[in-house]
């Protein structure tokens, strides 16, 4: 099953400690297990652009929809046996400690 991990910031989480960041090891483990499909960081919300089409007209605006304290800082698409494996994969990601991770099952078209 495919899941998308939303890597989120969380103001109530412990402060980031560079020495405890195991993202490289995490990536290596998940690659060797064949779990990771694709994933990366995301540029901050200041670099976001919003597009809408209303009555045929494309409207482009700057920034996110709403000011929030929590935002998505990265993502990973993973392929796992089941939710328990996805939970295990997410729990090993450094941002599970310094932020939080939302696991969303991918919903293929036609299902």
């Amino acid at each position, binding site marked *: *099953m495919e*899941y998308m991990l939303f890597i989120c910031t969380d103001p109530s989480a412990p402060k980031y400690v560079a020495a405890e960041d195991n993202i490289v090891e995490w990536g290596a483990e998940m690659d060797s297990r064949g779990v990771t499909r694709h994933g990366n960081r995301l540029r901050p919300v200041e670099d976001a652009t919003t597009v809408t089409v209303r009555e045929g007209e494309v409207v482009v605006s700057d920034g996110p929809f709403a000011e929030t304290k929590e935002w998505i800082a990265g993502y990973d698409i993973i392929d*796992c*046996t*089941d*939710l*328990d494996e*996805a*939970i295990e994969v997410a729990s090993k990601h450094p941002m599970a400690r310094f932020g939080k991770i939302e*696991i969303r*099952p991918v*919903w293929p078209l036609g299902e």
Partner: protein
Amino acid sequence: MVTEPATEVQTAIALASAAETARITATLIRVTGDWSLAEDCVQDAFARALVDWPVRGIPKNSGAWLTTVAKNRAIDRMRSAASEKRAVRELATLTKLEGLPEGPGANPAVDDDRLRLIYTCCHPALPLEARVALTLRTVAGLTTGEIARAFLVSEATMSKRLVRARAKIRNAGIPYRVPPPELISERTAGILSVLYLMFNEGYSATGDSALIREPLVQEAMRLARLLIALLDDSPQQTEALGLLALMLFHHARRETRTDAAGDLVTLEEQDRGSWDEASIAEANALLAAAEQLGISRRSRPGSYCVQAAIAACHMVAPDAGSTDFAKVAALYELLGQIAPSPVIELNRAVAVAMSQGPEAGLALIDRLERERSLDGYYLLPAAKADLLRRLGRKTEAHRGYRRARELAPSEVERRYLSKRLAETAPASQTDQTTSPRTGAEEKK
């Protein structure tokens, strides 16, 4: 043609429902992977029994009869739903369904099936209330209407909750299995907390709703028994034994918790002669078995075993005064080490006050007050007021009871605290406080 008396059929169906629902549902889920289909087919089988058994007689092996009917129903449903696209997969499922053994007993996979079902219903990715509802529906075999009534919500609300839970199991890929060793301890603890929540929902109800919610108490205890049987020989069984012992200790004094007027009766004042001796004896035996298991495995006692041991101290004392409060205080200290909480610390303070005198307890309560983690919790000022009253510091006690009454969550507790207020009232104020609920004064 046999005609069975209606009551006998009803009894037979109720017994079969309690004994067979989880087993048949669990097996159908394993084979078909479809929760709604499995539950519907089992329900259909019981509906058929209701029509069939009064006329043709109650089958000798009712479990096998129900399995066959539910299985055939599943086969019919899958055949008619089979589409071109999914034909191959459904054909494989149909073959497995047709090959299922008919009755209980011969199949060692059955216990695993029921365990799988319980672990899946109690998966932490499901909302807590859905875990409770799904366990009652699927493992205990209660109808959606019965669960809705026990939770005091409409059948539509409960039905929606169950539909969502089943959808999440399917869509989010929640596995249908007994968890692997690295997860088993935490997941079993999760099941126990679902069962204890179920029990408390029923047990904490008073008055009219107590009768309506009683099935929750009964089902929680029945499910705890089932879990103990299924967890035989596993290290997880110890805490399950502790939980059932704890439930039985509570249940044994259920009738004595309130008086005829519906007012709260404290543990010290309850009529111990009316406690259910059989439940107490069984709870003591379970607790002893749990302690024995713990010793033989050299494992630290879990929180349910310790809570049951605390309850045992109260339940075996012939009167409140002869309770071994030193042991109670020591057990609360142990419980606080397993699961630190200011409420446990408050209970320890009360036990310390009972064994070493009010001053010792008061010192612990003062510390809790300074930590402020129990701000707004009515039992903190109430417990403090009790100790002040015993020390003869009536004015301070009175103030504490008043504060507690302001914070109390329910009318039953407010009435109890009003009585205490009246007892500690200075002479000049007696009029206001002995006639509570006369209007504005009460709200102050």
